[in-house]
């Protein structure tokens, strides 16, 4: 119980820091850091969604970036058709989906699409275990990657460049501040829901399934179905992150779905500490900051980043979160 409380406290602190940093940057005249922070926030959301299946469900997916990409393309394709003045879907019987720059519509489409493909690919992938699961999720992600590369209409490998950030009634999303706090709001919403989810009976079964599947099965829990639902929910959340990313960077490309992107998100989760939800936020922050800072000092920054990751694995089990918990107090 103590650990749980401390985790809660850590999460509140982290969110508070996220909320307070932008005005601080403003004061220091360093507005450019805001967009870096915004990216950290969005990657943090993606990583936290992966944490649901990886940390809580014990399913090591190396294809999570596919859902990020599906979300981003939902936004990108809608916007593309809006610029062009054409319809995304034009099926008979009045089933017409016009192009649109509405953020809400993009979020809705992304959640539906990513959730749907999560269910579809999850239902096959979850039949496998361990290394096989890693590889089959990767295979599905690669399929999406090659599919979007071959979509000439949407720029193929070049991707789609958006003009401006889309619309939300009552808000000017082109204002970096407003957009940032919108992302923060969505992240908090996700964390609250995820927290409830993981502490519910459903989440307990999931975690039980991670630790001892046989036993839960014997108790009559449909572990497979629970896992599948968790997988689809995480996919949908990654889709949301994808939409936010598309509008933040005003750009979408298949590179978002490449397996190395899945790997990066996974690194964020592990670096921060899996199964904690707040850890992935920290992981995203540290990884993106390191990339940024190291690159300023040396062109060969990867030769430092690599061993850093290895050291984290060797000496900081449970990642940054574990480290903070250790520093935070030995009272349990």
């Amino acid at each position: 119980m103590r650990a749980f409380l401390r985790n809660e406290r850590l999460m509140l602190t982290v969110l508070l820091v996220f909320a307070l940093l932008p005005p601080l940057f403003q004061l220091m005249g360093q507005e450019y850091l805001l967009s870096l922070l915004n990216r950290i926030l969005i990657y943090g959301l993606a990583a936290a969604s992966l944490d649901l299946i990886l940390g809580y469900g014990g399913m090591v997916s190396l294809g999570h970036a596919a859902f990020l990409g599906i979300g981003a393309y939902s936004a990108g394709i809608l916007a593309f058709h809006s610029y062009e003045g054409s319809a995304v879907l034009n099926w008979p019987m009045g089933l017409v989906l016009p192009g649109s720059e509405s953020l809400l519509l993009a979020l809705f489409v992304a959640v539906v699409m990513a959730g749907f493909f999560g269910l579809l690919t999850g239902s096959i992938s979850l039949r496998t275990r361990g290394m096989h699961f890693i590889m089959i999720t990767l295979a599905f992600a690669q399929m999406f990657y090659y599919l979007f590369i071959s979509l000439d209409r949407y720029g193929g490998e070049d991707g789609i460049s958006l003009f401006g950030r889309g619309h939300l009634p009552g808000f000017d999303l082109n204002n970096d501040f407003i957009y940032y706090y919108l992302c923060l709001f969505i992240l908090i919403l996700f964390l609250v829901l995820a927290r409830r989810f993981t502490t519910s009976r459903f989440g307990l079964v999931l975690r039980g399934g991670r630790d001892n599947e046989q036993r839960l099965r014997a108790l009559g829990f449909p572990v497979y179905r629970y896992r599948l639902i968790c997988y689809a929910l995480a996919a949908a959340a990654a889709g949301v992150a994808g939409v936010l990313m598309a509008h933040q960077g005003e750009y979408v490309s298949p590179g978002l779905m490449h397996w190395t992107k899945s790997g990066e998100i996974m690194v964020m989760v592990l670096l921060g500490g899996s199964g904690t939800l707040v850890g992935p936020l920290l992981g995203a922050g540290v990884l993106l900051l390191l990339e940024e800072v190291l690159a300023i000092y040396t062109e060969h920054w990867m030769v430092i980043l690599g061993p850093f990751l290895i050291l984290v694995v060797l000496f900081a089990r449970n990642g940054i979160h574990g480290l903070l918990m250790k520093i935070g107090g030995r009272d349990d």
Partner: protein
Amino acid sequence: MKKVLLMALLALCYSVTAVAQEPVRIGMITTLSTKAGYLGEDIRDGFQLAVDEGKGTLGGIAVDLLVDDDNRKPEKARQIAERFIKRDKAQILTGIVFSNVATAVVPKVVREDVFYISPNAGPSMLAGKGCDPNYFNVAWQNDNLHEAAGKYVNDKGFNKVYLLAPNYPGGKDAVSGFKRFYKGGIAGEVYTNLGQSDYAAELASLRAAAPDAVFFFLPGGMGINFIKQYAQAGLNKTIPLFGPAFSFDERLLQAVGDAGLGVINGSQWSPDLDTPKNRAFVEAFRATYGRTPTLYASQGYDAAQLIGSALKKVGGDMNRQDDFRAALKAADFTSVRGNFRFGKNNHPIQDIYVREVVKTADGKYTNRIVEKTFVDHVDAYASECSMK
């Protein structure tokens, strides 16, 4: 840990305030890591050479060149652009190697009244409908070098050409660029995977189609693989190979070896181009970096020269935006490639050559100009640009 994060952020901030206000800052976003890292390295080195020749100035104006590696990721490039613009107050950006990165960065930065000088990527969107008064391309529009190959193959009377390119926009543009000037028959049109390394299957199909010439566009390592395997299959003795300069730059050629000899490729520049400016450039580059420059290095050098010519005209005062823009458009500098001026879409109007890969006396590989294929060539998208 949060403290560490904060300290890192503060460190980032302090590194800014330390820099003096005086020199004009130029932000170079380029690709130094990944397999394509040597392209960015050459662009940077070419640019730096021009700065060094001016002892830290371009056009007599002190400049501060900031370089950062985009890791070939569009979003990373976007992030760097933002840092250069907002933190370092750079008003001139340059350096991007790849079209997809340029597509992500350029439309955004030119809207923020920043000038972007492209030393390499020239996607059709930015040359046509998406052209912008603040965007200048000092290299070429992407299709240009393919067009040169197409015209040459057409002029030589080949009539059964086999086409091969990766399955991505650059590959499709290459084939359509080639076809724009090649009017003969097509023996086959094949698109390969991006990043593919083994071409045995494609070569077998190619041999079976019995073409009289092959045009291919496979940049970087893909090209090395293809040319080597083409020669190993014995095809180079029977079917001549044509391509754009991208698979035949002076660094890549050393990794291809004899397999590349005799291949004809289109380029706007060549190390043996006989102008005083170019002779001096090649010599200075060799003396400084110990290698022969590639076309990318020449483009980096020209980008620096262009910026220098414009800075000189405004006396280094970047607040005179309209004057600076007009000065860029005038392109008042001696390009290493000879004739150079901007068309209405701010893309070059220039001569384009075909070159042949040859071996030098010291066992290195390089290109020799065969003929001038185009004089004052204008790209195909200029008419779609609404600028005057």
